[in-house]
């Protein structure tokens, strides 16, 4: 491992072309290889729903789906998403509608400050896609990569359970108002 004081910040990085699908839309951009996927989504695509909560790849607030599987978008280079389909929290439901998980988090009050919520919802979407009727333990295990520092886990679990039920019944909550 090299020492932390080696400075390369003056060097201009190369630029790489990037083509991928974000929330169903084809995109083509030029990015620096060091750009993390989460910064690409937030700063280039202007999709700010994926949050940066830690610098250690632990908190999961940046969770998105990469070809349907959950990843921490702060722990991937944007260029590594070449040719993939990325889904962010903004892509879960058409504008003006809520995905059943979003509706359940609102209904069950599965949040306090809300910062971790997009990551929890994306991880829960992946969990329910593989296991529509998870046990308490399976919900805990499925969400182990996400941290809520308000520690509102009880209602988060409740929200995932109730969304699972809604999805199994095909009962998609309508938007109010």
């Amino acid at each position: 491992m090299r020492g932390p004081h080696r400075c390369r910040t003056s060097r201009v990085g190369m630029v790489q072309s990037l083509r991928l699908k974000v929330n169903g839309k084809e995109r083509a951009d030029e990015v620096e290889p060091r750009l993390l996927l989460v910064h690409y989504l937030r700063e280039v695509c202007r999709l700010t729903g994926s949050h940066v909560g830690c610098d250690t790849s632990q908190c999961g607030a940046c969770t998105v789906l990469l070809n349907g599987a959950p990843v921490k978008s702060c722990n991937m280079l944007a260029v590594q998403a070449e040719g993939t389909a990325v889904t962010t929290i903004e892509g879960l439901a058409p504008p003006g509608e809520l995905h059943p998980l979003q509706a359940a988090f609102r209904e069950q009050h599965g949040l306090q400050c809300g910062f971790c919520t997009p990551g929890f919802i994306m991880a829960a979407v992946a969990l329910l896609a593989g296991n529509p009727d998870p046990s308490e333990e399976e919900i805990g295990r499925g969400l182990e990569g996400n941290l809520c520092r308000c520690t509102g886990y009880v209602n988060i679990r409740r929200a995932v359970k109730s969304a699972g039920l809604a999805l199994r019944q095909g009962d998609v909550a309508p938007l109010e108002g």
Partner: protein
Amino acid sequence: MRPAPFNFSRAHSIAEAVSQLGDAGPEAKFISGGQSLIPLMRVRLAQPSHLVDINRIEELDYIRAEDGHLHVGALVRHAALVRSEEVRRHLPLLAEIAAETGDAQIRTRGTLGGVMAHADAAGDYPTLAIMLDATIVTDRRRIPAGDFFQHLFTTALETDELVCEVVFPISARPHRYLKFRLRQYDWAIVAAGVQLTELGWRVGLTHVGPTAVRARGVETALSSGASPAEAAERASDGLEPSSDVRASADYRRHLARVLTRRALEQAS
């Protein structure tokens, strides 16, 4: 934080990866899942001049049982090891260790070969490899696991050498891997693995020194008919673990004995 600038290329074959790395010079690195490398780059503890991305190399992504061995390509992800029928049938301990590695998001990306090359003292696959005398196959040679792991984050790999495959002997007999950790997704403070093979019990310990070790004293005691509780007392023989904020050396030795006993008692 953001990584320092670097150049990037994508390889589509083993030969291309090795040649791209050679062309890029001694400060270049391979990147596979990146679940350990990217966090290090973000805090600038790692500042490679160039990354060769091996994620698109299809010839590194396979699981095959052949001649009494399980051959696993370096690019196989933790999640694929968990799901694989082949792994569950022929070496269920590997699937169980994969299921307890990181969290769901990390298991989507992280790879077997990446864990081997990174050689974290708290890594779990290295313990399994050392316990079972696995072989690490690179683009140029075969390295026994016992020779591969040399020290903290240090392996026998040359700077431009690529891990291509890990070959484990097959065993579906009783086994168990127990991690002691503060949080579910965390690295083990200490872990113990046991696997019954046709040659008797194999016992390995994680994070009790710079590399994983085999607890040969425990293996010998078991083969001479000692009970799990008696044999597990030997688990800390000769260990010189370090002390850190999570555990003192003495506590790590204690954990080695307790986890070994529990793993033997729970093995199924």
